[in-house]
């Protein structure tokens, strides 16, 4: 274990403890509160101790109210989210893994330029492209179709860059030339030599693509006009707009109050949460992708 020579003063230790406690509270309290809010009735959320546990039947009640909203819309939204993100995930992997491989391990004219463009585009906020994409989709009459969401979701330059970094630092070019000498075609080199080595980076690209697209709101919000097409994030927005909690005029005829909103929030992020819990290591590796190439 790494230790400093100088014994630290009590004050320094105390300051460390206080700052870390505050940080943990700031980051964790909202999550804990959200979990507990689903177990209570709206009245209990307002009156009871914020960190008390209600009952399991309250979760069931909240679910019934939530499910009643537009006759099971919540399930439709989740299904749409799954369709859009997994559809995009498949296309992303098929296009970006070979591209990253080619940028790292083959030579062609325009390779460096493509790499530079890829980095520029991946660093641009995705929101900046949403309205131009909408205008373009509108011009070719694709807006309002599921393709107006799935196809832009599948354009994932960050995935190409991650794959490029992975192949150029982990797979020696000599290995590939050995396979070529043995008579492998370029396709076979890719398929039989590079792909078996690429599992970690496929997982990484899949992770970032999935999380980013699942949580994307702006693009589907702009592209899709109809509630039956909404993904979960746009659906949440719909729930908020319809809730009597925030909107006294339009909020009649449904029971979307705090517990229902909390439950809806939780249900819609569960897939991302699960992926987060199981891929901490991959996450860190991906976020530090730039560092490994310094």
């Amino acid at each position: 274990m790494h230790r400093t020579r100088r014994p630290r003063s009590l004050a320094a230790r105390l300051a460390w403890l206080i700052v870390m406690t505050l940080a943990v509270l700031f980051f964790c309290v909202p999550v804990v509160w959200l979990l507990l809010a689903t177990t209570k009735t709206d009245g209990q959320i307002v009156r009871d101790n914020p960190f008390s546990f209600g009952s399991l039947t309250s979760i069931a009640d909240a679910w019934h109210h939530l499910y009643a909203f537009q006759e099971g819309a919540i399930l439709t939204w989740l299904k749409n989210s799954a369709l859009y993100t997994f559809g995009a995930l498949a296309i992303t992997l098929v296009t970006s893994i070979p591209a990253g491989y080619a940028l790292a391990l083959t030579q062609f004219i325009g390779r460096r330029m493509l790499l530079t463009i890829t980095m520029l585009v991946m660093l641009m906020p995705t929101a900046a492209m949403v309205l131009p994409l909408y205008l373009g989709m509108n011009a070719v009459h694709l807006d309002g179709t599921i393709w107006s969401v799935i196809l832009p979701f599948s354009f994932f330059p960050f995935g190409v860059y991650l794959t490029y970094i992975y192949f150029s630092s982990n797979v020696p070019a000599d290995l590939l030339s050995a396979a070529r000498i043995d008579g492998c075609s370029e396709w076979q080199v890719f398929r039989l030599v590079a792909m078996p080595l690429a599992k970690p980076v496929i997982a990484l690209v899949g992770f970032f693509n999935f999380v980013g697209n699942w949580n994307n709101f702006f693009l589907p919000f702009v592209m899709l006009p109809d509630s039956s097409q909404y993904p979960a994030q746009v659906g949440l927005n719909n729930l908020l707009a319809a809730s009597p909690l925030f909107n006294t005029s339009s909020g009649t005829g449904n029971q979307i109050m705090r517990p229902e909103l909390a439950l809806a929030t939780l249900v819609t992020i569960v897939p991302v949460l699960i992926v987060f819990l199981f891929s901490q290591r991959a996450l860190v590796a991906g976020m530090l992708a730039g560092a490994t190439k310094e």
Partner: protein
Amino acid sequence: MTTHLATERSGRRGGRSARNPVGRAGYVFVSGYVLFLLAFGVLPTGYAVWLALSNSRNQLVGIGNFTRTFTDYRFGPAFLHIGLYLVIWLASLMILVVLLSLMLHGRMRRASTTLRFLFYLPGALAGVASVLLFLILLDPAASPVGWLLKGFGWNTLAQVNAPGHLPVLFTVIAFWTGAGGWIVVMYGALNSIPDEVLEAARIDGASTLQIALRIQIPMITKWIAYMLILAFAAGTQLFVEPQLVSLASWGMIPDSWSPNQLSYQYAFQAGDFNGAAALSVDLLVLGLACAALVVFRTGLFDRDER
């Protein structure tokens, strides 16, 4: 077809030829991605630029749409809102992320893995979920920190969400979902500083504070710049947060609080695609400038100078 060519070339040995067997295979492998790059990156950008420079009858009007949107009474406030938000957000991001990363790095390294994960976890709620959560959470009637909000004299959600508070509110939300990821990055950057360097400084009698200020922070400046530029670029694009808060504000927050919202209003409220395009080109240029700054100036990204 390409096989014999490949063996012939790689037979010549040498680093370059080893990665350069056949020119054509590379094109095939990148073709799918390039198609998407053109269709969903280059073409929409080009089309937006064309729309921004023309009118609804497809006549070129030069910078007319830019000046027209610029003089819109909502344009100034929208950029002012974003500017104010960015100042608060970037300052708190820089100070707190660097501070927390240094502190996590300084002691209890084993516990720090767990702590980093806890800080990072709210990232799963990025987007609508986090805004919705904070809207419920910051209603003084139901809030676990209701006493604190009431202490400030805010007794209703409308008072918490008052227009003047939004830059701070959005900073809190953005920090909650985004800071953890940056702490992970900064921690990794701090890890790349060799222990001997820090050890030597300690032997020379440098205090923890001096080490942080004179060695650690200067050595991770590139990463801090990277974080600030990307946070700046993302901050200019704010949409979800003001959109949702404005929904829940009983009409107190305009629906064109941020530039992206204004652009959305042009397209969907007024049906003015040329004006919307002009505004989105403004934002694209900002985003592209930031990306270019990172790629060409920070030296963090290997542009493969072979």
